[in-house]
């Protein structure tokens, strides 16, 4: 290996945070690993995206309904050095390299965090862009050195810009309280519903859970406003979102002992789970179910839901507020036929919030072709999707996730991007994007 051929694009040392000298290096590595574990709940790909603001780890799932980003500030590391581009040795070609890693590759390295915490004295991470490798070195006790060479693919990282401060509702909760609140949910729980009024907050099993009898526990947990560090409810609402990402964020916030902020509005608009710490900032943006008369509920149908979207852009629904009426706290009941339960109390003509609030994602690369045609015509619905998407009068109101990034894709036949939607998400097409602060508005 000739030294002048080595291209060290980014050199990152994780050792000891200077602001917190007591933290042993293993613990810092543990936090880093916990972040990766939390992001692994979102998707099976991870972007390493360094910038002057620090190292961002990003993840977005394939149906674009969940996005996670953990930004480690430069002072989190003992030494942090990065450059946006690489100059090939003699030629003046500037390569803009971004690292997309398979979660399968990187997660095993950070799986045994207990032993990393115990043994690691220093961790050094750098990229070797000449070989498309990220090198992770652990310097452990007894002089043992672990070296992991993980291949990456050059791929631009995504950024989602979500104005979380604009959300009407914000709750800040300590991880311990949230953990107690969700302890009754089983691991098979796919979605949970958060219902809020200025007086109380209810976390409950989603109404949309499948009806097989093995999964028939329905739980509700009430949390009073006093339990929150910050409690601001602008609109009474009831949102349903994926549980596994929430659990990932919770585990992460428990590890760093930082409260979780939940920002949300109405059903169908994405919500944000965020953690702000001195040394890092985590933001997880999750799609929420839009009230919509169709029967799909699982995440797999996210994409399909685009096609099934109905065409009239309609008024916002005012279902919020009627949810907590007669429920007994913590009651658990068998859900034999839950759809029946809700069929009477639900308006039949609930609409989606087509053109307000759902962020739109643009990608600078070819993935832009993924934008689904939003077709009012249902004939193209693949057979795997649920059949009765027609609005049968009197049919129960069922909800479905709006794909948050494409959720704004229009209901009529126009090109999605020609519409004057507020662009809430952009790919970090260039470093200027990041430098001129678009990240900070995230």
């Amino acid at each position, binding site marked *: 290996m000739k030294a002048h051929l080595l291209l060290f694009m980014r050199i990152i040392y994780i050792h000891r945070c200077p602001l917190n000298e007591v933290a042993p290096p293993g613990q810092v590595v543990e936090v880093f690993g916990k972040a990766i574990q939390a992001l692994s709940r979102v998707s099976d790909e991870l972007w390493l995206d360094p910038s002057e603001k620090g190292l961002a780890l990003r993840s977005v799932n394939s149906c674009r309904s969940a996005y996670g980003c953990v930004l480690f500030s430069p002072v989190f590391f003992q030494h942090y050095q990065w450059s946006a581009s690489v100059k090939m040795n003699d030629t003046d070609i500037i390569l803009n390299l971004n690292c997309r890693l*398979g979660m*399968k*590759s*990187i997660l*095993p*390295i950070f*799986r*045994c965090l207990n*032993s990393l915490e115990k*043994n690691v004295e220093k961790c050094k991470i750098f990229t070797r862009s000449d070989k498309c*490798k990220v090198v992770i070195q652990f310097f452990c006790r*007894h*002089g*043992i*050195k*672990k*070296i*992991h*060479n*993980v*291949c990456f693919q050059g791929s631009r990282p995504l950024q989602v810009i979500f104005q979380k401060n604009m959300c009407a509702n914000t709750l800040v909760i300590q991880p311990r309280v949230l953990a107690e609140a969700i302890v009754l949910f089983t691991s098979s729980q796919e979605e949970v519903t958060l219902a809020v009024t200025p007086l109380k907050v209810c976390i409950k099993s989603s109404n949309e859970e499948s009806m097989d009898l093995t999964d028939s526990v329905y739980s509700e947990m009430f949390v009073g406003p006093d339990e929150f560090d910050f409690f601001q409810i602008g609109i009474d609402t009831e949102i349903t979102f994926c549980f596994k990402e929430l659990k990932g964020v919770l585990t992460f916030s428990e590890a760093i002992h930082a409260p979780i902020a939940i920002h949300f509005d109405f059903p169908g608009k994405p919500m944000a789970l965020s953690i702000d710490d001195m040394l890092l900032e985590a933001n997880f943006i999750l799609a929420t179910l839009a009230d919509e008369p169709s029967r799909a509920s699982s995440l797999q149908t996210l994409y399909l839901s685009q096609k099934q979207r109905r065409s009239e852009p309609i008024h916002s629904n005012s279902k919020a507020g009627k949810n907590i009426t007669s429920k007994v706290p913590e009651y658990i009941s068998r859900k034999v036929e839950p759809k029946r339960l809700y069929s009477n109390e639900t308006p039949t003509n609930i609409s989606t919030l087509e053109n307000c609030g759902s962020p739109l994602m643009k990608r600078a690369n070819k993935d832009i072709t993924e934008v689904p045609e939003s077709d009012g015509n249902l004939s193209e619905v693949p057979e795997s999707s649920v059949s009765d998407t027609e609005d049968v009068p009197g049919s129960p109101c069922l909800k479905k996730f709006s794909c948050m990034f494409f959720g704004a894709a229009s209901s009529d036949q126009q090109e999605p991007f020609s519409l004057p939607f507020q662009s809430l998400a952009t790919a970090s097409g260039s470093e200027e994007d990041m430098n001129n602060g678009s990240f900070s508005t995230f």
Partner: protein
Amino acid sequence: MPLLTQRIPDENDYCLVASLDNVRNLSTILKAIHFREHATCFATKNGIKVTVENAKCVQANAFIQAGIFQEFRVQEESVTFRINLTVLLDCLSIFGSSPVPVFVSIAGTFTALRMCYQGYGYPLMLFLEEGGVVTVCKINTQEPEETLDFDFCSTNVINKIILQSEGLREAFSELDMTSEVLQITMSPDKPYFRLSTFGNAGSSHLDYPKDSDLMELFHCNETQVNRYKISLLKPSTKALVLSCKVSIRTDNRGFLSLQYMIRNEDGQICFVEYYCCPDEEVPDS
């Protein structure tokens, strides 16, 4: 003892008799080599050697020397039989296999074992006793199979390292099993002792410096890089977790010997040995 009234063989009818106050001193060692269903047992006056093999490429031997037993008699020069190791271990732990709390064990609630074998064609008889309750097990023995001779001779050993097992334990438990091979590098120069895997996660290397405090002996004469099927080596983790020290040797053919020193509950030392043949030649790189 109605079970034994049919015909009680005379003590002299048995070609092998062994008694043990604490059955776990035997079962623990056998568990360390339990990666295949069947095992071959050889008993001589020095003790019992139990051998398990796989794929004609790996062999594990557990040595339980006569001194471990409170009574050990072999009538013939050597006694050999093949036995279902899973069944044997199930029988040995018939009173439970979890460690007895210390204060209870002082009170003497070990499971005691008396093991008798009458000879070719007869079952292996186990008498297990705990707290006055006796269980009698008869395990059918099978035709002994010829075991592999790895011809691993200490005079041909090129490189030898003795490590405290603690240092290898985590490494083996975290081995990237998506890698087909484990590559072992032993060298008088850097990286001295390196374990490498090449799996989905890319390549991983684990380097042990020769002056590490885990390194009890470092005796490497020339650089050797050998690959071993990870699926064959992984079962040795069972022995590794029980052991306190491990000796890693390679000979001039690249054959690997892993010797695990295991201290039993009475503080006696037993050995478990794994032999493994190397995978194909490593291309120069």
